[in-house]
């Protein structure tokens, strides 16, 4: 009985630990203290230095405060404190010099922190001097991200949404813009945030040290669906990234199966085309995310849901329940048309 409980307990604990580990591997890639690039790495170092130094100060102050409770008037016994409500001139002078000393020490510490903060800021801005940068324009829109890769050659420009692929070890310049209200681009594992402000272009530099998928989220309140405006940054080795880029630069894959062909017709015959573009087809709407390579992306509705056929069906049939207030119109799709449409969209790898 006892051993059984113990085994059960141990296995439960292991299970929990494992689950925690697993979830942290799979999902929890949106953390400021889990750096995956030089920028966030330096901030992480700065954070822990602040944490230990200021934590020590906090402890000292707390211990001193607690001691006021215990040593109420040791050493001040002889003074007629109660009658005069003040200690002797000697005690006052002693206390004053302690306060002065503490103040001078705090000034010195804060000067050190100012230097540390400034030097970190400077080091982080050095990235823009590194060679061979890649420029990506991120445009915030209520409530999704438009991503544009600006190559030197305009024919090789690429528009996608809610998912950024970057090569590992190459500096990335994020040019931030906004179509409507202020948003904020934030991928904590790579760097701090940068606001996207209408009528301005803001820039941020980041770089990934090792491959991985890093989640980011809009950090400036931008209206109803501020909570559902996420994006993925996927860092890949250079060759894998180039392959991805080449694939993305192609027009949309032509439908192959009869289902997919029917699906394409369904798409073209419905209102979808007023908002969405699919390169290589007549669909050229601009107000919604570009769907040319929709099937290759991880999430739908700005990563509100994972990109599965079931989720997509739910999203198309009733977007306002999944993400209330979003700008996707509800479109009547007959039951016979839905499956082909899903197959077609998911085939757009």
């Amino acid at each position: 009985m006892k051993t059984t409980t113990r085994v059960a307990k141990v296995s439960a604990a292991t299970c929990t630990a494992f689950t925690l580990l697993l979830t942290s591997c799979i999902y929890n890639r949106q953390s400021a203290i889990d750096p995956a690039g030089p920028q966030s790495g330096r901030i992480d170092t700065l954070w822990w230095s602040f944490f230990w130094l200021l934590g020590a100060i906090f402890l000292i102050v707390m211990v001193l405060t607690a001691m006021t409770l215990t040593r109420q008037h040791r050493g001040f016994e002889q003074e007629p404190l109660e009658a005069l409500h003040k200690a002797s001139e000697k005690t006052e002078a002693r206390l004053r010099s302690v306060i002065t000393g503490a103040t001078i020490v705090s000034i010195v510490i804060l000067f050190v922190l100012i230097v540390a903060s400034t030097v970190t800021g400077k080091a982080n801005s050095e990235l823009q001097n590194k060679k061979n940068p890649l420029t990506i324009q991120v445009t915030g829109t209520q409530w999704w991200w438009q991503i544009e890769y600006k190559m030197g050659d305009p024919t090789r420009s690429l528009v996608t949404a809610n998912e950024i692929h970057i090569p590992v070890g190459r500096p990335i310049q994020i040019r931030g813009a906004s179509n409507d209200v202020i948003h904020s681009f934030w991928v904590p594992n790579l760097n701090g945030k940068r606001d996207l402000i209408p009528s301005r272009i803001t820039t941020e530099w980041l770089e990934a040290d090792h491959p991985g998928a890093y989640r980011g989220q809009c950090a400036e309140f931008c209206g109803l669906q501020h909570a559902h405006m996420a994006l993925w940054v996927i860092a890949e080795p250079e060759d894998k990234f180039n392959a991805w880029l080449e694939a993305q630069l192609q027009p949309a894959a032509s439908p192959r199966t009869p289902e997919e062909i029917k699906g394409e017709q369904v798409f073209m015959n419905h209102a979808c085309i007023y908002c969405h573009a699919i390169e290589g087809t007549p669909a050229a709407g601009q107000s919604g995310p570009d769907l040319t390579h929709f099937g290759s992306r991880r999430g739908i509705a700005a990563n509100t849901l994972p990109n599965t056929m079931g989720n997509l069906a739910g999203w198309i049939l009733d977007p306002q329940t999944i993400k209330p207030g979003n700008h996707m119109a509800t479109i009547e799709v007959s039951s016979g048309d839905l499956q082909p449409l899903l197959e077609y969209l998911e085939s757009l790898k």
Partner: protein
Amino acid sequence: MRASQDIYPQSVDVERDVEQLRNSWRHPRGVLGWLSFTTHQAIGTRYIVTAFIMLLAGGIEALMIRTQLMRANNGYLGPERYNQIFTTHGTTMMFLFAVPVMEGMAIYLVPLMCGTRNVAFPRLNAFGYWMYLFGVLFLYWGVFTNTAPDVGWFAYPPLSGPQYTPGKSTDFWAQMITFTEVSALCVAAEIIATISKMRAPGMSLNRMPLYIWSILIQSWMIIFAMPAIVLASSYLLSDRTVGTHFVNPAEGGDPLLYQHIFWFFGHPEVYIIFIPALGFVSAIVVAHARREIVGYTAMVLAQIANGFIAFGLWVHHMFATDLPQIGEAYFTASSMMIAVTSGVQIFCWIATLWSGRPRMTTALHFVYGFIAIFVLGGLTGVMLAAVPLDLQAHDTYFVVAHFHYVLIGGALFPLFGAFYHWHPKFTGRLMNETLGRANFWVLFAGFNLTFFPMHILGLKGMPRRIYTYPPGMGWDGLNLLATVGAWIIAAGGILFIVNFLWSRKNGEVAGNNPWDADSLEWAASSPPANYNFEYLPAVTSRYPLWAPREQRGVVTGLATDRREALVTTLMDAEPHHRYILPGSSIWPLISAICVTIGFAGSVFNGWYITWGAIISGLAFIGWFWPKRPLEPAHD
């Protein structure tokens, strides 16, 4: 309480003077009379009561927020309702609770501590209260008619602009700001005039109680900070209603300009809230550690410096907007330097407690709680001052944790302490100490349980102002903990209310000075008479009630058959001339109603500004129109 002849000089006829004072300071009867009170105790009490009701409202909103965030993908509140509630929560707490409650306490305490009979402009004082009350009603009218603002308490354009938030909700918000501005500015002006010109004879600048210094500095900050929010909210309102382009990016306006102006007000606002609270702490520490403050000059110095530096911090709310790095780093330096001036005050309090003989009352409990929480909040503030750290922590739950530590720790805990400390003065009865301690510990535990986990949540990437979050982000457990903590805070709040209600009837009768405290308000009876003092006190020490009896003095020769006070000089508080204070008046209410018609109407139709101005002008003329007979002149 009847004044006894033996504590006053024989040259005066105490019986007659008290009789006359009672007559001349008597409140008018009836509903109309109640609406025309102008004594500072009545107005101060109204402010405090209204503000505490707002604290309750804001607290209920906070509970709704926490309940929604209890678990991932919770469906308790939808996005629309959630956005309305967090906006109303922030707005209520900042504009309708924190600032007004500090002002209410000041209105009540400043004339008593300064040793005078009323604030300098009693009718303006009443007017300020009515404007505040109408602001409250205006915002909550919007809330209950489902036009609650939903763009955050900061209302950044263009989200708050006409294009992205049509309808009236944001107009309600912006105009509510106007109401509270008017109220705050009225109070600030009269507090400055009272402190500068109506201190008891002998209360020179170096003898002013630290609370009086803090509220003086706070009032000056209001004078310089509030005009910025006047402009910000007017920009927003006129862009929305009459089509100007101040902050409309489509037409050459700049949304960042709004942020600059808003935070030029918004950062000092935080200090406007907690500088008076630091004054409470000083008063409580001195009274309950039973000794003079260590480093009076350093305390005053730190407060003045705080007041100035607070105006040089605003850009640290805007580090993510891509300003030049040198420009941002200036604000890093000033934001860190303000930690020194706050630190000096903490050191002085600890030294005072260290070398004093602290009496562990509930008020002092709250001071200890304040030190623990506020120091932690201050230190996370130092972290946020560093640009690189702020870029990660900005707009995350780390910031939510930080400013709740600073504002609840730095303002609400001292406020509760102050309430326990001054409750006997307000009502004549002490609050229950056992319940008080329970109240403190429940609040303290609940507070830390709610807000400490938020630091970690922020670092783990949880942004602010999201109405829900997906499972598996590693946020679930901490959010649940925070929600449990929020409910514990609510329990603490209930304990406070129970204690307050219980003590009204059953509290121990306090007498004039239950704590054997040092400052002048404890020389008045509890609760104070409408005229505060039979004879205004004269001061010969920084701690007048601790001075030996032979050094105490009183002022004689003021008329008692009308409301008269003494004007003294700014620096040394030497008697200068006598000053006739106005009595009760209904005009403040009438004027406030007229101004409200203009303000509230303008949300619906711009012409109301004109009509409102005209009727308000008429009301103000009525207010100032000389009564017959003209007050006698003695010169």
